């Protein structure tokens, strides 16, 4: 009963507007129809954007998981007096505006940036290569943006890892790959599911990073949504894209849970 005001507040000011927006995608000339979805899906550009968004989401989540496990495991095994400081360094980027972090990549990945200086300096290319406004740039920006969430989730999960579990497995003859697959992964799967969902969902819905580092040449669903609303005043497509993004977010959570369960 005490939760009623909060429930009403959320339902009225959040759920209702979202439902109104999403319902736009199911209407054609004020009549309920799936024609809008059929039209949206039939366009090659929309298909390209959808699969690009999906691909980058999974790629960022996957690479975050690989680097995140190594980082989280290293931090977890640091002496406690250093652990807090290093953990603070992981959290620190989350306190900096995504706009500032993304603009830094423009400088780093530019023709005169540090990456191209290194490429030309090492003789890997005679001239600077184009890195900005590519999928690679968007991938790097999203990875840097969301990987801390994976690391935090995994460190939290590793708190439940018994102190002697890894040592016991090693004593019994397991190599490091077996230790990871048979001991660490099963015991930290909840962290992987939470981290994977956060990173994947974040990558799907981030707007600033794809807009700045990808621009119109690397459209993703969220930048396409902005374009449809703010340029074309097309709320039907916006509702469809929003529905797809929400479905992908829930779907990813179910998928990660399934993967984690399958490894049990």
């Amino acid at each position: 009963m005490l939760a009623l005001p909060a429930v009403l507040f959320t339902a009225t000011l959040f759920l209702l507007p979202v439902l109104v927006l999403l319902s736009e995608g199911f209407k054609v000339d004020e009549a309920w129809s799936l024609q809008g979805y059929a039209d949206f899906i039939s366009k090659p550009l929309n298909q390209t954007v959808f699969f690009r968004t999906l691909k980058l989401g999974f790629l960022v989540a996957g690479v975050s998981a690989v680097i995140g496990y190594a980082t989280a495991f290293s931090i977890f095994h640091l002496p406690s007096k250093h652990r807090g400081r290093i953990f603070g360094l992981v959290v620190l980027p989350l306190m900096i505006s995504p706009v500032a972090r993304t603009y830094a990549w423009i400088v780093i990945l530019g023709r005169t940036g540090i990456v191209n200086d290194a490429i030309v300096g090492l003789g890997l290319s005679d001239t600077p290569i184009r890195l900005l406004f590519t999928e690679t740039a968007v991938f790097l920006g999203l990875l840097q943006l969301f990987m801390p969430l994976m690391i935090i989730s995994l460190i939290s999960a590793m708190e439940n890892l018994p102190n002697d579990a890894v040592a016991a497995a090693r004593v019994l003859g397991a190599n490091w790959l077996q230790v990871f697959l048979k001991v660490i992964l099963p015991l930290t799967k909840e962290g992987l599911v939470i981290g994977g969902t956060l990173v994947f969902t974040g990558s799907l819905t981030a707007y600033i990073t794809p807009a700045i580092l990808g621009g119109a040449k690397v459209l993703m669903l969220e930048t396409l949504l902005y374009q449809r609303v703010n340029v074309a005043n097309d709320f039907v497509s916006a509702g469809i894209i929003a529905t797809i993004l929400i479905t992908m977010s829930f779907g990813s959570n179910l998928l990660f849970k399934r993967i984690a369960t399958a490894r049990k």
Partner: protein
Amino acid sequence: MKYLIFAAISAILAVHTAVAADKKLTISVYSFAQDAYKEALYDPFEAICDCELVIETGNSVERMAKIEANAAKPVIDMAVISSHDALALARKGLLQNLDVSKLSSYNDLYEAAKNPLGENWAVGYTFYASSIVYRSDLIQINSWKDLLSPELAGRVALPNITGTQGPLTLFMLSKALGHQGYGFEETIDSIGARADDIVTFYVRSSQLAQLMNQEEVIAAPVGRFAWSSFAKSPLPFVWANPQEGQTGGMNVMIMTKGNGNEELAYQFMDYWLSVESQTRIANAKIDSPANKKVQVSDEVAVSLTYGAELIDSLNIISPADIIDNREGWVERWNTKVIK
């Protein structure tokens, strides 16, 4: 008796004060340079009109959507908007024909600004030229078609079709490439064939200024209003004078149909179009004047689209051609260029 007169005068003054305080004009404007506009236009007008200006800002789509959504009972009295967006609103029956006799500065405007949409739907208040900014130490630009030349492959940016500059660039590229009509099919296909050579399709001129100052891009079409971002750079940027000429456009003032606040709206429009206000706005380098009597220094003029010779020479695509073809351009652009 004197108490009665005193009370009556007090009552009249009180009513007058209340009415004055209630005088409000709601205007819808572009969100850029609002601090400068407040100083150059809004505050001086409020000082003489004894009224309150309510400023609503946003991009064109948001502002047009608000005007359309409140057509029955307008919440916006007067707006400034691009000429083609104004025509789109006029075609939907959302605007009222202006009574230009109430604009004392009307005869001082450049001819092109007087009745740009016909039937006095709008009056122009500013022009903007568009051309190509380029690095004079690295490249020479003589024609709009140089944007697609092999020398600029990988170093050129174009405006996205969804912005104001996109259609203008297509218009001039079509002219340079010898293509006919306003469908721009062949021109869009030519850009699509070279899409990999184009660094990005920028949306905002501020984004382009950063890319050019970072040496990522060495040539791109841009509006004159953004020239100051390039002029103050240590890099040698030059404003091109292509053989096909410069392009450009105009922003206009409109009044919503049946807003009930016409007199105050006319007063504000007339004030905005006056030599006094247009000079102040030009000197602040916010917008170029549409009033031909405005005089500015050479230092100010270089940042603006200023003077009859320049304005008369601009290649301007008609608002009707833009809104009749825009959907087709975006569709083809998404298919052939963005892919």
